[in-house]
């Protein structure tokens, strides 16, 4: 009843806001209408001229005098004397948003849209996986949780779409010339986008609302899962489409830069940065979704009234964190690939990013990523407290704290330190050894790999906490042998095939010699993986894991830290191969050790189960912190990716001549990103609250009959 009242009040207020907006819209002048028509007329003229040639933009053309909103020249410009009729016919380049800075408006709206979109695209990926796990394992709790994820999703979907619409209107209204260019290049893909959006909406609602209907038989459940997979396909397709527009702005292709004439839509679409951004965003969305869901569970945990509710949301928070960390582990690799491709697309843009105007934003990024890893590990360590039997492994925590914080220290040490004149004089040269050896990419790559290995180790001891002594591998049956052999073949294929391919890279002879150590490292790792399998078969699985960790750390962390410096100085082209080698070696260790662990403890007795809900409150604040950090990180990285274009709408092709064409200061960036984060968290809280309104009522009615059973003790 109370909810009904709230809804009625909301409806009344909404009606009031709508009426107010209507009167405001009548009262406000509509200054741009004539210009829009003028622009349309011009477009018609262009069309009559034939072809899809765009307004002429000279690459490298010096910026024309800054334009004020409404396309009028800035004060003092001579062009202002043009006759009235000609003025009306002039195409509009820029408009202002009620006197506000258009760039900031678009920045805020697009980032909010992106954050909601990341959630809407990331959550279905793991919702479907959780549903499949529940279905195959026959555990209803997974199914319930997957549905709860989807409930949040459907609530956020409408907001994402609304923000997307607002962004579209802002772009077309405030940057008509730029959007004219984009439309001319990408018009066909925009129709596809609209169609896919229908697909996304239909499958999402079908997926959510048919949840209960499609229960009962395996065929029905598989049909429901298929709907979820389709939802993911549509969502990923949508993201890939829009990514092509965004990356085209950074690395334009398929057009004549001087005239903007479209030569190949395919190349404009599949521009150099498209795939790196696709992969990076796909993984980041899962990570983002996982941490946001984790924070949702944490808030629910903190407000839980019963032990059952606490147990449920504790488990949900754990799953959210698990998903977030799982996606966080490959994210630095994807980010590094994207960074390398930015360098490849334009060395200037690369230098601006890592060594220039944006280098300090990467220090902030380093702090945020460090906080994510520390927060996620901290949550796992606290989680061990609710597992009886974890005492056997807590002794490792102090070493993990030491290693992770050491790595974090190296990770955030800048190459260019803020120094006072006195310090410079005392040091006697430009770089202090800390910044010289910790501040470059070779060191960063090394420590991030060590953080990843340490995080993985934390997870291993967490999952072992509940297990008794391992069962000898010889008693694991054929499944164990087949499983380990399959993974061995996968790892060998990954390592050896890459080692062989490195023999054939086209490089000058004096540079190619630097590839040889990489090939040797890959073969050594292959041997270590084989040895690990051999030891596992001889019932020495723990030794095998330790050996593999040791070899991986020696090669991927210590040796490549040193060798990265060597390559940086003499053969930068080899850095690309070095990073892939590093990733392959670390991934092979993670995969093989995970599989060995699974089979070693597959039939082990449980020590005492997991007391879900018995988590200290600070663990839930850690989950909330992780969510806030990932949101800030996404806001920051959005600024960097977009800001790298400096004063170009489309890098090197279409220059931004508006009065806002400057790179904001770090302070201004901090304020806007802070505002975006606050807006997003506020909106998402509101949307989740709305999504739970119905549930409260349902619970009130069904309280007697409904029983929230304990989650599965295995997890």
């Amino acid at each position: 009843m109370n909810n009904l009242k709230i809804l009625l009040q909301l409806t009344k207020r909404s009606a009031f806001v709508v009426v107010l907006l209507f009167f405001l819209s009548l009262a406000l002048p509509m200054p741009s209408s004539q210009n829009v028509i003028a622009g349309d007329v011009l477009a018609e003229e262009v069309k009559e001229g034939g072809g899809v040639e765009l307004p002429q933009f000279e690459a490298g053309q010096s910026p024309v005098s800054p334009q004020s909103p409404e396309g009028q020249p800035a004060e003092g410009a001579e062009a202002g004397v043009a006759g009235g009729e000609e003025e009306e016919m002039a195409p509009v380049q820029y408009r202002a948003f009620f006197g506000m800075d258009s760039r900031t408006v678009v920045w805020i709206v697009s980032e909010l849209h992106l954050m909601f979109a990341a959630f809407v695209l990331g959550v279905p990926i793991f919702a479907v996986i959780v549903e499949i796990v529940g279905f195959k394992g026959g555990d209803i709790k997974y199914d319930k949780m997957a549905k709860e994820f989807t409930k949040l999703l459907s609530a956020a979907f409408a907001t994402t779409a609304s923000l997307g619409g607002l962004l579209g209107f802002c772009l077309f209204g405030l940057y008509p010339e730029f959007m004219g260019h984009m439309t001319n290049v990408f018009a066909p893909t925009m129709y596809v986008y609209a169609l896919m959006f229908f697909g996304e909406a239909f499958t999402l609602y079908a997926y959510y609302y048919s949840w209960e209907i499609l229960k009962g038989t395996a065929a029905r459940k598989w049909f429901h899962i298929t709907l979820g997979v389709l939802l993911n396909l549509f969502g990923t397709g949508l993201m890939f489409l829009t990514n092509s527009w965004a990356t085209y702005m950074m690395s334009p292709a398929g057009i004549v830069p001087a005239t903007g004439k479209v030569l190949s839509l395919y190349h404009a679409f599949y521009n150099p940065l498209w795939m790196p951004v696709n992969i990076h965003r796909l993984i980041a969305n899962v990570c983002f979704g996982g941490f946001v869901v984790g924070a949702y569970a944490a808030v629910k945990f903190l407000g839980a009234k019963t032990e059952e509710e606490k147990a449920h949301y504790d488990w949900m928070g754990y799953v959210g964190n698990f998903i977030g960390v799982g996606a966080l582990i490959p994210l630095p690799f994807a980010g590094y690939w994207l960074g390398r491709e930015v360098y490849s697309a334009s060395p200037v843009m690369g230098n601006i990013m890592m060594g220039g105007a944006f280098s300090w934003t990467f220090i902030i990024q380093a702090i945020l990523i460090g906080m994510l890893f520390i927060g996620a590990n901290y949550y796992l360590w606290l989680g061990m407290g609710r597992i009886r039997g974890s005492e056997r492994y807590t002794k490792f925590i102090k070493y993990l704290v030491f290693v992770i914080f050491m790595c974090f220290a190296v990770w955030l040490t800048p190459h260019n330190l803020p120094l006072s004149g006195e310090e410079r004089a005392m040091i006697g040269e430009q770089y202090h050894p800390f910044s010289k050896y910790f501040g470059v990419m070779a060191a960063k790559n090394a420590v991030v790999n060590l953080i990843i290995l340490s995080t993985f180790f934390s997870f291993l001891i967490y999952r072992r906490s509940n297990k008794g002594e391992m069962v000898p591998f010889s008693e694991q049956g054929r499944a164990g042998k087949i499983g380990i052999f399959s993974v061995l073949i996968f790892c060998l294929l990954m390592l050896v095939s890459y080692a062989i391919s490195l023999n054939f890279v086209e490089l000058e002879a004096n540079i190619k010699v630097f590839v040889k150590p990489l090939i040797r490292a890959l073969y050594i790792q292959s041997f270590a993986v084989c040895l690990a399998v051999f030891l596992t078969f001889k019932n020495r699985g723990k030794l095998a894991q330790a050996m593999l960790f040791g070899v991986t750390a020696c090669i991927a962390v210590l040796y490549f830290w040193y060798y990265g410096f060597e390559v940086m100085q003499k053969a930068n082209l080899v850095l690309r191969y070095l990073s892939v080698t590093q990733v392959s070696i670390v991934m092979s260790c993670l995969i093989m050790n995970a599989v060995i662990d699974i089979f070693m403890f597959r039939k082990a007795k449980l020590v005492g189960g997991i007391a879900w809900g018995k988590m200290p409150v600070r663990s839930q604040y850690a989950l909330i912190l992780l969510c806030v950090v990932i949101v800030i990180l996404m806001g920051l990285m959005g600024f960097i990716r977009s800001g790298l274009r400096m004063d170009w709408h489309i890098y090197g092709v279409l220059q931004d001549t508006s009065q806002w064409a400057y790179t904001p200061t770090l302070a201004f960036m901090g304020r806007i990103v802070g505002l975006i984060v606050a807006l997003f968290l506020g909106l998402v809280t509101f949307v989740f609250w709305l999504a739970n309104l119905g549930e409260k009522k349902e619970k009130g009615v069904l309280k007697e009959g409904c029983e929230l059973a304990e989650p599965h003790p295995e997890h």
Partner: protein
Amino acid sequence: MANKRKTFLFIWIITAVVCLFLFLKYASPKIFQVLMGKGHPMPTPSTLMMWYMIMGVLAGLVYATTSNQKFVDFLSFLLPDQGPRIKFFLQKIIFVGFPVLVGWFVYTWSIPGAASPVELRIQHPTLPQDFEKLENPFRQADADTQRRCIEEGKILFQTYCRPCHGSKADGNGPFANSFRLRPINFQDPGTIATVVDNYLFWRIKEGGPGLPSESTPWDSGMPSWKDDLKDDDIWKIIMGEYDTAGVMPRQREKLE
């Protein structure tokens, strides 16, 4: 007995943080002096010192709160208890020492003093678009021509650049000590090896006066050589400079 020992977690963490401070303040400058063969210690910069100390304290707090039992042990040190005399003694030291330490920090930060401001440096100013597409005309030449250009470049480097950047391109030229920000050590892998050679062309040609308006104020004593050197000479200097420093320019990568 074991429990009583655990109540000293607070002290262990303080000890670890103090050790970190002593290492950064006193040990590391000496270690780097020896390792790098310098005639003077290499003091840890204050900004880095602050960051590392914050991380040290944070690491201690994270560790102390990783389980309820540790957290209780950690806090229990501060509570009156029937512990050994040493605990009683250490408690008194902390209760007196902590306010004194805070007071000392407040005092040292607030007393008037003269110090040059700490600056956020940007390593690579933004290369103007006009220079991005330039190619070194001698890089594609045959091996003999390249060798000749490098040798000519080395001579030009020693003539024009050595006074500041040093004969080994290590930033230790005869004039180097006269600059507030010393000339760049080109042997360092984080400097010219990380940029394409047309970046150097821009820096040599335009120098400090040609630095962009973003990220100002710049702190560069680099002169503009465009009125004194021909473009071909600048390209040769770049080749000679890389050769002297023993590093290679960043090469343009093929997009994958």
